[in-house]
């Protein structure tokens, strides 16, 4: 069995979002997890990445001004 090579913080942080997206190879996933198991600073980065993703995913929709809404509804009626 080969031992997973340790990676520095810069490399772990670089891969955090892809790690959350499951967009990295199993080998790199293991490296990031190993790094996170001992590095408190990068765990903070990971939590913040999760918060940022949730913030973006739940960001409220832009309000549609009533005059724009009326014009677009009239446009749809005219199709």
């Amino acid at each position, binding site marked *: 069995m080969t031992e997973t090579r340790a990676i520095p913080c810069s490399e772990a942080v*670089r891969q955090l979002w892809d790690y959350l*997206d499951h*967009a990295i190879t199993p080998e790199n996933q293991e490296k990031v997890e190993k790094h996170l198991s001992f590095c408190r600073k990068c765990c903070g*980065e990971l939590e*913040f990445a999760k918060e*940022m993703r949730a*913030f973006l995913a739940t960001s409220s*929709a832009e309000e549609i001004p009533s005059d724009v809404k009326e014009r677009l*509804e009239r446009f749809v009626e005219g199709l």
Partner: protein
Amino acid sequence: MESVIEVNEAAVRDRTRDAFQGLARAELPALYSLARRLVRDGAEDLVQEALLQAFRAFGTLKEEAAAGRWLKTILVNVFRDQLRKRSRSVDERPVGDLSDFSLYRTLVDEDPFPYSDTLHADFLQAFDSEDLREVLIRLPDIYRIPLVLRYIDGFATKEVARLMEAPLGTILARLHRGRRLFEREMWTYAQESGLLTKEDGHD
């Protein structure tokens, strides 16, 4: 005099129009919101053009339940085509060295809300939808579009690549660089706009 076939075709056309209009009306807020995050000016025109193309292609919509995603896809296609017409070259404005920037670390170091126990969450909560748009609009198109589609509108990375007609690796690289740039712009915008001077990060 109209034949029975012509009368029936007209009735089908009316029913189709009614169905499309119902779906389109329901999706107007979501379409407008997406358009506002993609373009600085001309969101209303973009929505109109998308609706026009969607109406012409309404027959290709297989499930009405998927109408929202289908309309957004058409809007993104229209936007991509408009970008191509406006400029043959991709907007590759230099964005500086991003390799060392970490918003997480910057917030810890600068500590803008010293009395907060939830510094990072408070920082994010200081941004309302208009602030978020202002930050997004500052980004070059090549970074903003994948970020909006992937992380705000929830398209899969592969779908983003297909929509942008770019290789998956290119989109992954732009998402990576775009996230760094977005975080740096959030920090810059927060400083410039006074978001950090509000008490504890809240209004």
